[in-house]
C-alpha cells in the first residue's frame, strides 16, 4: 500500500512542476533584427479549444529555427499557421498577427496561393504525387507559370534535384514514378519539389520522423546547405536533430512558447526550468 502511494505522489509532483502559468512570458531572445517573419500575440483555436496561447517570436532571414516540445504542445499547429495550411481545417481559427516582410499573412486581400508559393512546406510523411519524379518537381513551376519553355523547366527540375542532393541518384530515371523511391529519397524529392518554386521560407514538419538514421543524416546535411539560401522553420521531436541543424531553438509547452534562444545555449544553459526538464529527459 505504501509503495503505491509513493508512486502516485511522485507523479503528482511532476505534474505540478509542468503546469504553466497563464501569464507565462517567453524567456530568451524572441526578437531579431531584420526579421523575415514576425509573429505577434498569435492564438490558435480548434473550435473552443485553444491550441496556441499568445506566441510572439521572430524568424530571421536565412536562419534555421527549430521548434521542439513534447507531443501535443502545438508546435505543428503553429508551423502550419505560418503558410495558412490550417485554413484547410474548418474548425481552426487564428488570431494575432503573422507577417512576412511586414505584410500580414492573414489580411483579407492576401491570396493563399501566392503565400504558399513563397512559403513552401515539407510534411512529416513523404508525400510525393503518384507521378514521375520529373513531374513531381515540375508541378510547382508549372502551376505558377515559372518556366516559359521546356528547356527552362528541365533546368529548374535539374537544379532543384541537385539542391536536394537527389540528382545523381535519379537522373537516369526521371520519368519513373516518384512513389517507387525509398522513404529518404521520397522526402528529398518532396524537398526538391518545395524548392523548385524558389520559396523564401521552407516549413518542415518533422521531416525525418518516418526515416531511418542514414536518410535522416542526409536530410540534415541538406537542411544545412539550404539555409544559405532559404529561411527554414523545422518542427522536430528529436532534440539531437534540433541541436545539429538549427541556429535557434524554440521550446513549446502546452501551447505556450516557453523559451527561444540560440541552440547552443538552449542545450547547454537553458533559461527556463521547463526547458531544462525537457532536454534533460525528465519528461517528453
Amino acid at each position, binding site marked *: 500500500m505504501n509503495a503505491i502511494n509513493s508512486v502516485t505522489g511522485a507523479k503528482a509532483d511532476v505534474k505540478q512542476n509542468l503546469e504553466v502559468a497563464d501569464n507565462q512570458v517567453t524567456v530568451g531572445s524572441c526578437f531579431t533584427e531584420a526579421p523575415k517573419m514576425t509573429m505577434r500575440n498569435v492564438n490558435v483555436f480548434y473550435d473552443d479549444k485553444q491550441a496556441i496561447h499568445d506566441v510572439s517570436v521572430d524568424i530571421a532571414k536565412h536562419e534555421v529555427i527549430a521548434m521542439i516540445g513534447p507531443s501535443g504542445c502545438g508546435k505543428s499547429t503553429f508551423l502550419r499557421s505560418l503558410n495558412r495550411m490550417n485554413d484547410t481545417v474548418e474548425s481552426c481559427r487564428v488570431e494575432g498577427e503573422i507577417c512576412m516582410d511586414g505584410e500580414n499573412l492573414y489580411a483579407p486581400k492576401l491570396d493563399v*496561393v501566392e503565400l504558399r508559393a513563397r512559403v513552401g512546406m515539407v510534411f512529416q510523411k513523404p508525400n*510525393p504525387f503518384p507521378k514521375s519524379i520529373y513531374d513531381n518537381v515540375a508541378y510547382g513551376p508549372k502551376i505558377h507559370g515559372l518556366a516559359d519553355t521546356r528547356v527552362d523547366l528541365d533546368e529548374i527540375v535539374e537544379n532543384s534535384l541537385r539542391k536536394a542532393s537527389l540528382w545523381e541518384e535519379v537522373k537516369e530515371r526521371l520519368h519513373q514514378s516518384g512513389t517507387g523511391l525509398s522513404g529518404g529519397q521520397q522526402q528529398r524529392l518532396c524537398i526538391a*519539389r518545395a524548392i523548385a518554386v524558389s520559396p523564401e521560407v521552407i516549413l518542415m514538419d518533422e521531416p525525418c520522423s518516418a526515416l531511418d538514421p542514414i536518410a535522416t543524416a542526409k536530410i540534415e546535411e541538406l537542411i544545412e546547405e539550404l539555409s544559405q539560401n532559404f529561411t527554414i522553420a523545422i518542427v522536430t521531436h528529436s532534440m539531437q536533430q534540433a541541436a545539429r541543424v538549427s541556429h535557434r531553438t524554440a521550446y513549446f509547452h502546452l501551447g505556450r512558447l516557453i523559451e527561444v534562444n540560440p541552440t547552443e545555449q538552449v542545450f547547454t544553459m537553458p533559461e527556463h526550468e521547463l526547458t531544462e526538464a525537457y532536454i534533460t529527459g525528465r519528461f517528453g
Partner: protein
Amino acid sequence: MTKPVSTPVNNLEKIRKSLGRRNRSERLFRWYGRLAIFIGLAAVTVLFTDIVSKGHGAFRIAYLQLDVEYNQDLIGVDNLSDPKQLILANWQAVPKQALREQFPDVSGRSDKRKLYGLVSNGAGFDLKDRLLANPLLLGTQEKVWILADDDIDTYYKSWLDGEPYAARLSDKQVKWIGELHDQGKIRLQFNSNLFTRGDSREPEQAGIRGAVMGSLFTLLLTLMLSFPIGVAAAIYLEEFAPKNRWTDFIEVNINNLAAVPSIIFGLLGLAIFINFFHVPRSVPIVGGLVLTLMTLPTIIITSRASIKSVPPSIREAALGMGASKYQMVLHHVLPLALPGMLTGAIIGMAQALGESAPLLMIGMIAFIVDIPGGFSDPATVLPVQIFLWADSPERAFIEKTSAAIMVLLSFLIVMNTSAVWLRKRLERRW
C-alpha cells in the same frame, strides 16, 4: 489468500482450454462461408442453365426450301422502280404459288390455307427485298430458303428433339413437314432475324434490334447526363461545400434517393417531363432523363466514396505547393478517384440497363416495330422487351424471351467485367 494467484502455469492451462473452442468457432465460420458461396453459385448455375436450355433454340430457326418464280403477272409488278406498283403488289403470292407447286395434290380452301400457313406471312416481303436487291431476278425462277411459320418452327425443333409438339398443327401439316424433311427441304438456320429486326406480332419475324438500339440510346443519354452531374456534385460536396446542416441534409437526402423504388422515378418522370415539359412519351430522351434521376444517387455516392479514399497527404502536398483548390482537385484528386468513379458509373449504368419499372410509366412499353434511329424515336428497351415477350401467348416467344434474357445478361456481364478491368488498369499503386 482468497483468490488463486495467476501464475504462468495457470495461464497456460487456461489458454489451452480456450484454444479448442476458438479453433472450433473459426472452423465453423469457414464452413458457413463455403456453404454461402456454394448456395450462391448453385443458384446462379440453376438460373443460367434454365435460361440457356430454354433460350438456345431461339438462335436457330426453321427455313423451307422452295422453287419460287418471280412472275410479273402473279405479283403485279413490271417495273421495280415504281413505288406505287411495289405498294400494290401481291408479294405473298410468290411463296404461295411455290407451295402449291411443291404439293400439287392439295386442293380445297381450308387445306390450301393450311398449306400457306407453312411459311411465315412475312415471307413474301423477304422475297421482295431479295428481288429489289437484284432486279434481274424478275421473271426468273430460283430455289430459295424461305422462313417457316413459328408453329412449324416450334414443331420441327421439338420433333428433332424427339418430343414433337403438334398441338397447333393439323395432321396434314405434320405430314407435309415430314415429306419436306425427307426431301431435305426443311432445315434449321442461324436466326439472323433475332438480331437485325425489331419487334413483331409474329414470333419468327421478331427481333431484339429495336430494343437493343432503344437501350443504347437511353443509356447513352443517361451516361451523358448522370456522369458529369454526379461527379461534379460529388466533388463539390466532398471538396468545396462547407460542412454544415445544409450539406448534412443534402447528404441524407441523396442516400434516401438511392433507396427510392425505381417505379417512383417513373411516376416523377411522367409528371414532370411528359405532363409538364411535354417531352414526347416512349422516346429515349424521356427514358434517359428518368434513368438519370435514378442513377444519379448511385454515381454521387460511389464518387464521393472514391474521392474520400484519396489520401489526405496528396491534398496537403498539392495545397502546400500553392495549388488552388480547383487545381488540387483537377490535377491530383480526380485522377486518383477516377477509377472508382468509373466503376460506380458502370455499375449504375448496368442497373439502369436492367431497369424496366420506371420505363413502363413513361410509355416505353409500347409495341414498336420500327428500329429507333435516334433519341426522339419511339423505342422500347431490352428488359421491357423481355417483359412484353414473356407476356405473349405464342409458344415460340418462350425461347425468344430466354434468348433476349441471355443477350441482356451478356451485356451486363460485359459491363461489370469492364468495370473490374478498368479499376485494375487505372488503379495506381502506392
